[in-house]
Every structure is written in C-alpha cells, then in structure tokens.
C-alpha cells in the first residue's frame, strides 16, 4: 500500500516536471514571442486530506486541490477567468510579487484595489507578465488562502542569465496546514478569549501540498528548484541531504550565485536554486522542510513540524529517514545576496516612513496589531477607487481614512521605510507592487533603528532586493524603493493572522498619475455595484465633503485607562453601601445596650439571668440556629454584669 502511494506521488511529480520541461522547450522555441495564457478558474469547495490526518473542506479550482501551478513566460499576457462557486464566501486573487505596472486594479486585495467577488460572480484578471522568476497566487480576502486557494506562479525566462546552467525545473512549494477552516480559526483568534493574540499553530507541514513527496532526479543532471512558501504562518527551514543549493533568485530578483546548505523561507518568500544531481544512483536523499517553531505560541505534543520528501535516484532503493538536525539552525542569510543587476543603494530618500510594530488589545478584548497607533480596518470605498475619484484631493491622505493607514507617495521619489519591531515575534513584511532594497536589517533585540546608531555608511552598497523580508524579534529594518509604479499598494505582514489583526498600511503611489493613466475595466465596477460597494467617495463613502470621514469603518475603541464613569459610580455606590452597612451593624450592636439598660431596671440581675437561661434550655431544640441573633436574650445583663463584678 505504501509502495503504491509512493508510486502515485512519484508519478505525479514526474508529470509536473515533465510539463514544466515541455513548457520550457516551448518557450525556448518561441523565444519571447508573447502569448496569451488563459486559465478558467472555477473556485469551489472540495475535500482533501494532504497530511493523512483529517479530511477537511478545502478551496480548490475546477474541483481539484491542490490548485494548478501557473506557468507563463516573460512577456505573456495572463488571463485568469474566475468564477466564484464557493457559495458561502467571497474571494479574490492576488498574484504575489508581480508589480502590476499600469494595472494596479489587477492586484487583488479586496477593499484596496477591487471589490469582493461574491459567490456566483465572475471576475477576470488580465495583465502582462513583465518579470521573470518564482511567484505565487493566492486569495487576498478575509484570511482565505490557507483554506487552500494558493498555488505557484512560475514565470519562465528564455533570456535568463542562468538558462544554460540547468537542464530541468522543479517547482517545490512548502506550506503549513490546518485542519480547521480559517473562518472559525480567525473568529477565535480575534476574540477576547485570545487576549495574547496567540496564532493558531498549524497541524502539519506540507511539500507540494502533500507529504512523503518524491522528486525524481537523473544522475548528473542539474535542476533549477523553484521554491515557494505558500504557508499561512510558518516560516520553514529547508535542506537537501547530500546536496548543496546554488541560489540564483529570490522573490523574482536574480542574484549572483550563492552556495547554501540550508535556506529559510518565511511565509510568501520564494527562492530558486540549482541542485546538481549526483553521478550515482546508489541512494535516495531526504528533502526536509522544518517549520520555524519560534513562531508558535505553544508546541502541541502531537505536532510534527517537519515534512519529508526525497530526491529519488532509484525507486527500488529505500527512502531513508532524514538525519536529525538540532537547533540552532543556520540558514543562508538572504541579506548577503547580491542582485544580478548590481543595482546600487538608492540615494537619499525623499520620503521616510517610520512604522513601529506593536501588539495591543482593544476594547473588545481581542489582540490587534498596529503600525504605530493604527490597526488596519478596510475602508468602505476601496482605496483605489477613492484615489481615482477624489480629484486633486487624492494627494491628501485624509480622504483614504485614518484606519487604512494611508501614505501618499510621490511619483519617482525614493521612499525609505523604517520598521521597528516592538514585538518579540518575527514578521515577514511584504510590499505589493515593488521589490525593495533591504538596506539594513538588524539582529534580534537591536531595538528601534533610530536608537541603534547605524548610519548610511553601514547600509549595503548593492543591497539585496526582494518583496518579502523578515523583520527580526525586537529588531529593525530599513527598506528603500523608488515610487515608479503608480498604484495602490499594501504593505503588510504576510503572516495571515496578522493581516487579520491589522498589521497593514496602504501606500497610495502617485494618485494623480493614476487618474491620468488608469482605466478600470467595466467588469470591476459592476462587481462592486452588485456587491453594494460604492466606487466613488472617500474611505467613508462620502463624495460630497471629501474630508468628512464620519461613518468610516473603525476598529473597536481603546481599552479604558483606569476608571470610567460606570467604574466611579460603581465604586461610590459600593462605598456608600459599605458605610451604610457598617453603620447599621454598629447601630444594632450598640442598640442592645440601651434596651439592656431598660430591661435591667425591671428586675434583679441574677434572677433575670436565670430565667433567660431556662428559656434557653427550653428552646434548646433550635439546633443549627446557633447563636444567630439569639444572644439578644442576654440583653438584661449589661448593667448587672457591672454590678456583679463590682460586688
């Protein structure tokens, strides 16, 4: 049975590589002659059990899951016709890492560049592929993609400077897997019952959305592995036993070749590298992807954070268990990479944006993520449509609302992003529409950049570029990019949980330029109309007074600091109750004395006492009523006691 399973997986792996090989041949033959690649994606629920532990509903395409890998060439036109057949959820697609130059409305994030594709709706993504490299596509609404709507997007490049270095391409994704649907997980994650903001821990790790994957290798050949981390949360360490990697590309940016024995891919990061097959077929070798457990709030006992596959030279040979690798892992440092184009450090920034990453609880008790003091809340009018309809006011960040955390960037100016992590977690930050230069990345616990004393001289001269970079715990990060791509671009943490909790900012880049050059397809506006989403107006949907943001969507208020009115009322009332209560108790305690005096005058002390005593004897049946209120029969005693002792 196991053999059969391996065989099946093996077979599929062969198919995948064969297909990509065929495509590659095709593109070599066509030599950059632009083609139109069309996909019809009927997005549906289906069932899958990739880790063999639990069947669960997953979001597939055309009834299949995993969803297809998109292969295109540089220069191609990619057309994706989406039909949302989910029935119960809206959707959208984001093509991660593609700049969408001149087509920001194809970028995919809902409430930013488009409206939600409601169940039953159609939506066409249609854009030109201008960048080579390894990308992926995924849903960009309501934390949906970890339910399965995620797949690699490979842009082959006939003119690649490395085209002669390899014989075949292998697409290899790593991902994390949950057994529950995101909807429920998010509801709990963003609730008062999770005040620490502990992110749900995945149930398992996957390679190509499965486990025990076999990747067939032929001796002596060289393979270009294109790896994507499509996970929701977990970064992954990846290594190949018995083989080294030669890194050639990260996030679509070619680099000077660099040797690595282990790499780290955060959620949404990509890396392509060469693996040269050995010359003999005497053994097969494990591929290991190991989830970064530092991210996990707790480690469940039953969690296997590793997933294993094999480089298979000979199907008849055993598939060896991977050797145990102990912490600390020492993955390749991506900041040490040098872009192939040797683009130097961008000059002094025209605009510097400083963002502090903070986690805090709001008035509903849930844990939110903040850039500075703002946690992202989506606007009523998608930001792009505000930018396109606000006229000259589009350069005023106010029209985009407070809670979208908008920054208006000027065309072709150099922007510097300084991100200070005031949180002890790792955050992979992703910028839509650009790759940025990582000009400085601190070690852990380095504190805010401004206080670290680092100067421009220490910045990389030819900084590594990519579109997703990891900010270290309590560290800082300095990024630069040129605002040469008019559009509305999100900057956010790519941990899907933190997108939900608001670790998102909006960059509105050259809005007046957008107004001049962009023509949003009619279909996009129709989808909005049918979804009831206005496409004119400021973030609050106000198109009369553009600076009136009343009605804007907002997160819950801050937790009260100290006493509120109700607290003061309650405290005062409680104090009065206490005082009144004590007064009554004291009054009762002393009241007996007055009466005692009165009673005392009416008879002789000892006799009265005896009578009282007998009374008690008679009433001794009142068991259980011990003492309560009963001592009042001694009332006559007080004055007598005094005389008695005096005698």
């Amino acid at each position, binding site marked *: 049975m196991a053999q059969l399973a391996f065989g099946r997986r093996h077979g599929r792996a062969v198919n995948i590589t064969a297909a990509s090989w065929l495509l590659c041949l095709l593109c070599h033959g066509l030599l950059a002659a632009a083609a139109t690649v069309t996909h019809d994606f009927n997005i549906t629920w289906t069932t899958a059990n990739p880790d063999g532990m639990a069947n669960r509903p997953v979001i597939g395409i055309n009834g299949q899951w995993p969803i297809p890998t998109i292969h295109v060439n540089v220069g191609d036109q990619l057309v994706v016709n989406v039909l949302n057949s989910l029935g119960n959820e809206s959707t959208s697609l984001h093509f991660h890492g593609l700049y969408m130059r001149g087509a920001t409305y194809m970028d995919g994030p809902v409430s930013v560049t488009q409206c939600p594709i409601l169940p039953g709706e159609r939506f066409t993504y249609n854009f030109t592929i201008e960048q080579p490299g390894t990308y992926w596509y995924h849903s960009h609404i309501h934390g949906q993609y970890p339910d399965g709507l995620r797949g690699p997007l490979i842009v082959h490049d006939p003119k690649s400077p490395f085209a002669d270095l390899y014989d075949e391409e292998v697409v290899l994704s790593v991902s994390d897997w949950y057994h529950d649907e995101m909807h429920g997980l998010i509801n709990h994650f963003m609730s008062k019952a999770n005040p620490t903001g502990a992110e749900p821990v995945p149930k398992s790790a996957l390679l190509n959305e499965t486990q025990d994957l076999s990747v067939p290798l032929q001796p002596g050949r060289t393979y270009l592995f294109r790896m994507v981390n499509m996970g929701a949360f977990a970064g992954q360490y990846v290594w190949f036993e018995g083989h080294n990697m030669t890194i050639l590309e990260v996030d679509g940016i070619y680099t000077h070749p660099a040797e690595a024995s282990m790499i780290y891919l955060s959620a949404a990061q990509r890396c392509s590298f060469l693996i040269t097959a050995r010359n003999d077929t005497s053994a097969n070798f494990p591929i290991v992807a190991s989830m970064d457990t530092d991210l996990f*709030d707790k480690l469940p006992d039953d969690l296997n954070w590793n997933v294993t596959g094999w480089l298979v030279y000979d199907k008849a040979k055993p598939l060896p268990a991977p050797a145990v690798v102990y912490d600390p892992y020492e993955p390749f440092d991506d900041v040490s990479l040098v872009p192939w184009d040797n683009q130097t450090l961008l000059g002094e920034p025209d605009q510097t944006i400083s963002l502090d990453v903070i986690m805090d609880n709001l008035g509903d*008790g849930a844990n939110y993520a903040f850039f500075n003091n703002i946690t992202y809340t989506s606007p009523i009018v998608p930001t792009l449509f505000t930018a396109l309809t606000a006229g000259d006011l589009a350069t005023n960040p106010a029209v985009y609302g407070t809670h979208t955390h908008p920054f208006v960037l000027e065309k072709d100016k150099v922007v510097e992003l300084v991100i200070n992590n005031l949180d002890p977690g790792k955050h992979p930050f992703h910028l839509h529409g650009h790759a940025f230069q990582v000009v400085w990345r601190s070690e852990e616990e380095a504190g805010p950049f401004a206080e670290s004393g680092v100067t421009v001289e220490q910045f990389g001269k030819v900084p590594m570029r990519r579109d997703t970079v990891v900010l270290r715990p309590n560290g800082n990060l300095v990024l630069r990019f040129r605002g040469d791509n008019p559009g509305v671009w999100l900057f956010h943490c790519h941990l899907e949980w933190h997108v939900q909790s608001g670790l998102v900012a909006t960059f509105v880049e050259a809005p007046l330029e957008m107004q001049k050059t962009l023509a949003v397809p009619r279909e996009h506006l129709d989808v909005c109309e049918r979804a009831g989403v206005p496409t004119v107006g400021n973030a609050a949907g106000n198109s009369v007074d553009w600076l009136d943001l009343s009605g804007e969507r907002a997160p819950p208020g801050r937790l009260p600091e100290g006493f509120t009115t109700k607290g003061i009322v309650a405290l005062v009332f409680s104090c009065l109750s206490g005082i009144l209560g004590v007064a009554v108790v004291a009054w009762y305690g002393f009241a007996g004395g007055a009466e005692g005096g009165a009673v005392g005058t009416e008879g002789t002390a000892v006799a009265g*006492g005896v009578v009282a005593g007998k009374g008690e004897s008679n*009433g001794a049946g009142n068991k259980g009523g011990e003492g309560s209120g009963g001592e009042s029969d001694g009332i006559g005693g007080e004055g*007598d*006691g005094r005389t008695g002792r*005096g005698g």
Partner: protein
Amino acid sequence: MPDVFAVPVFLVTFREALETVIIVSVLLAFLKQTLSSTNPSLHKRLVRQVWLGTGLGLLLCLIIAAALIGVFYTAGANKWEASELRFEGAFALVACVIISVVGAALLRIGKMQERWRAKLVDVMGSSMAARAEGGRAGGVWAAVKRWMERYAMFVLPFVTVLREGVEAVVFIAGVTFSAPASAVPLPVVVGIAAGAAVGYGLYKGGSTTKLQFFLVVSTCLLYLVAAGLFSRAVWAFEQHAWQTLVGADVAELGQGPGSYDIDKSVWHVNCCSPVFNGGNGWGFFNAIFGWTNSATYGSVISYNVYWLCVIVSFLVMRYREVKGHWPLMKQKAAAVSVGPKGDDQSSRRRASREEGKGEAAVTDEITRVSV
C-alpha cells in the same frame, strides 16, 4: 504586607481570642466571687479545671489545625492549584457565611457574661442536687450528665475554646487560599496576643462599655471583610471561568489586557492589584474592604447585594427584638415562615412566646451542657 500578614486571619484570631479570654475571665470571676472565701479548696480545684479545659481545648485546636493543614498540603495541594480560583471562591463564600451568621451572634457576647453567670448558678445548683442524689439514677446518659455537671468548670472552657478555635481554623483555612501560607502565622500570633491582651485589660478594667466597643468595632470590620469575601468569591468564580476560556496564556498577562473579561469589567486599573506582586499594600484594602483593581459586574453587584442583605437582616432582627414579632406578621400569627431565618423561626417564636421578651434561644454548647 499581605504576604506576611493576612488581615482577616488577624481579625478572626483576635475575635476568637478575645471571646475565649472573656469566657475564661467570667468563669474565674464567678468562681472567685462565689467560692474563694467560702470554700478555697473547691475554688482552687475548679480554677484548675478551668485552666485545664482551656489548655486542652487550645491543644486540640492546634492538633485539628495541623491535621487540616496536613490534609491540604498532602492530599490535594496540586490538584487545588489547578482550580485554585474555584477553591478560593468556595472558601471565601464559606468564610463569608460563617462571619455573617456568627457575626451577629458575637455582637452580643459582652452581655453573655451575665448569662453565663446565671448558667453557672444553675449548673452549680443542679450539680449540688446531683451530688445530693448520690448518683442513684442509672444509665449511661445520666452518668455522662453527672460527669458533665461535676466537671462543668472543665467542660465549659474546653468546649468553648474548642469551638472558637475550630471556627478560627476553618476560617483561616478559607482565607489562606487567597493569601500565601506565609501570611498566616504572624496574624495568628498577633491576633491571639492582641485578643488576650485586650480581653485581660477589659477584665482587669472591668469596663463592659469598652468591651462592647471593641466587639462592635471588630464585628463591623468582620462584616466589611465578609462583604469583600462575598464579592471576591463571585469574582473568583468569574475569573475561573475566564481563565478556563483563555487558557494557560492568562498567566503571562499579569494584570494587563486580557487578564480580565472586558465584557464583564466595571473598572480595571493596571495598578493597585491586591494579588499581583504580593499586592504592595493593596492586599490590605482587599482584605478589609474587598478592593480589587479589576471589578466585574458580578463583584460589584454582589458586594452591594451583600450589604443590602446585611442591612435588611439587622433591621429585621432589631424590629423583632423591639416589637417581639417579625415585620409583616402579627404577633401571635401562626408559624408561617417568611422571615430571613426560615427554619428556626417557629421554634424561635415559640421560645420567644415563652419568654415573653421576644428573645430567641441560643443553642451553644454551654446551653447543652447545662441541661
């Protein structure tokens, strides 16, 4: 301070010690008055009985306390740790009920001196009679009765001390769940010392007015404590439910956001916590006034409702003392229970009718002994 000095423990031991001293002093005074001149040898013997009874009672208390502590810490300390809040709540509730019920009774203890005197006369009289009878009556019960009567001077302080002591032990066990164990010994020692000192001082000074003042003030304080305990019991149950919901993470939240349920919060200040970092003095306010830095609707409402009940109860009790019947009821009405003390009511009423003073009977050990 709260980690070395639990205020409720002090108050309780103070009260119990004071009570014990007063009882002992009443007995001694009575013996001195009645026997020291007429029958010195009997006086000496009975005084020895009193002290023996007191001493044995204390000893037995200590043994019971030690046994209880032993059970706490061997049988279930770990298990209780897991649901400490539930136990804290339960014990706070028990302690609150004990204080509330006994508190009213204790208010009148000053006047009990005289009742004891009366009882003693009674006891002495009947024991003379018993002696005169020469033990002719047969049966075990009669023998016990005779023994009790013969050694009344031993039994009275013994039983009283035992009762006060066990009461204190149970109570202290209750409050220690919210206070560290280290907070118990000092207030116990100080409480006993202070109670004994005040009791002795009052005995020597012969001032019952001052005695009553002490008793009323300490009872008021105890009711404040009880109100706080009731509120805290509700708070602890709510917090237990909250921690169950949030899970283990709540420990790392300290007193910050998420350490409490925002939807139930009436006020929350990120300071002045009576439990966090040993309380820093706020534990004192928690012990006396039931202060919490994180009040809930439950804790605030229960605090106020508690006082409302106390106020109504005392007003009703006073009404009955003065008028001789419960409010809203005719004086000679049939025994229908509507008052707050339900079960005892009819017998009480019977007792009060018999006495014609509207006074309820007391069923403490002394009474039983003197039967």
